[in-house]
């Protein structure tokens, strides 16, 4: 039989570690909670903006493709008072956005002729959008003063049109081929000698083969209104181009080489009736947004590249 002296010593050894499991569990659970929270933290970056209208610390989100990828931690005035410096904490899975050449801009609600952009920021306040860079990872960026012209500008082929006057052409205006929208107007500016206007357009990748060195461009914007003894005729390529202006082009039947990137063309103020009769057969890669491919079976099928 054990004596009364032995028993407490044994039970003491047992009772001591048992309850001390509780702080150990607390440590494990607490540590896991903190780890889980910090695991999603990505790098901290700073962006300089000319102005920080609507950007608020800990409220403004950074979005990419419509998904929140970071939050503004702080908004400070730059030392030289020439703009603001925004500190952003990115999420871990968005860390690769922060590379050299990344573009950041502040999105405000914008209502223009080319459409309504960022309307949701009316309610949510401003937010910062990002277009990823391709260079080395970086932590300091210079933000854009306003949204870059258009999303996905990096595909397709750009051409420059020279015109006497800008007309009602605005960025985002459509470019038509046979009244199908195949590109957009990107920017416009006066030529160096101010003798003409240069308009840069971009043709989407599937249609770049349509632009040949001898292609003719004309201003398809606005509305043409003709009235004579036989009646009146109102012509507009599309409702969109009625407001924003637009460009149309036609390629002659005689095949010429495809125009390289940046080719300069003359933008004719009006089209020639003959241009509409041109019907060159040019193979294009059908774009994804084409109508249901099954409906294109039949006579159209031979033109479609497999």
């Amino acid at each position, binding site marked *: 039989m054990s004596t009364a*002296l032995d028993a*407490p*010593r044994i*039970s*003491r050894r047992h*009772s*001591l570690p048992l*309850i*001390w499991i*509780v*702080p150990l*569990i*607390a*440590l494990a*659970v*607490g540590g896991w*909670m*903190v780890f*889980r*929270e910090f695991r999603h933290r990505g790098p901290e970056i700073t962006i300089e903006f000319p102005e920080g209208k609507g950007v608020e610390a*800990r*409220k403004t*989100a950074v979005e990419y493709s419509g998904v929140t990828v970071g*939050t503004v931690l702080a908004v400070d005035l730059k030392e030289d008072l020439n703009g603001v410096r925004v500190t952003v904490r990115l999420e871990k899975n968005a860390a690769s956005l922060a590379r050299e050449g990344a573009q950041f801009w502040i999105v405000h609600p914008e209502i223009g002729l080319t459409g309504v952009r960022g309307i*949701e920021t009316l*309610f*949510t*306040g401003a937010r910062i959008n990002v277009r990823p860079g391709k260079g080395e990872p970086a932590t300091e960026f210079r933000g854009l003063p306003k949204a870059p012209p258009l999303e996905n500008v990096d595909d397709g082929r750009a051409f420059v049109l020279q015109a006497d006057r800008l007309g009602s052409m605005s960025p985002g205006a459509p470019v038509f081929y046979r009244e199908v929208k195949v590109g957009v107007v990107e920017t416009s500016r006066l030529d160096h000698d101010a003798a003409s206007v240069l308009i840069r357009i971009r043709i989407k990748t599937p249609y770049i083969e349509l632009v040949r060195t001898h292609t003719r461009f004309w201003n398809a914007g606005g509305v043409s209104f003709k009235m004579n003894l036989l009646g009146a005729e109102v012509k507009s390529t599309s409702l969109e181009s009625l407001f924003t202006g637009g460009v149309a082009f036609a390629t002659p039947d005689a095949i010429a080489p495809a125009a390289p990137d940046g080719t300069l063309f003359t933008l004719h103020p009006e089209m020639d009736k003959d241009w509409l009769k041109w019907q060159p057969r040019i193979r294009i890669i059908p774009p994804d947004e084409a109508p249901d491919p099954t409906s294109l079976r039949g006579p159209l099928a031979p033109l479609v590249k497999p």
Partner: protein
Amino acid sequence: MMTRAAYLRTTHLSRAAALALAAAVMLVPANVLPVLSTNTGGMARTDTIMSGIVGLWHDGMWAIAAIVFAASILIPLLKLVGLAWLLIAVRRRSTHQRRGLTKLYNVLDLIGRWSMLDVFLVAFLAGAVQFGALATIEPRAGIVAFAAAVVLTVLATDAFEPKLLWADAAARPRHPEVAS
């Protein structure tokens, strides 16, 4: 060598100390992690306890900020410090200030439950403010840690026996009034 009283003393002491330590550990995630994220009209913000208090203070709600500060930061901290003090006093078999320490224990026991104010507040807000796209409030991990810390503190206070302060009082023919 151990008497039954000594055995009980060790058990109570270590139980209280372990629970208090666990509570102290849980206070770290409770204060570091966000407790609440609100989304009102698309304006999203995530708050830790401290940032919430600072926010209330900046918005001019000083009284509420003070109450929240007292209930969520001051009281849990004071409770743990007080508990640690009691535990150390018992461990050292100190006969000093027994009366005051007993009073401290009673106070700790009383104020402990008020710390749950935060948890109730978050639970209430999260339940009440669910207007879909307009406004939603979501509890975050921090509030769980905070609730755990409060519960553990209450358990630690319960595990502590104020009798232990007076354990040797019966043995010694000395009056507690004199001792304090």
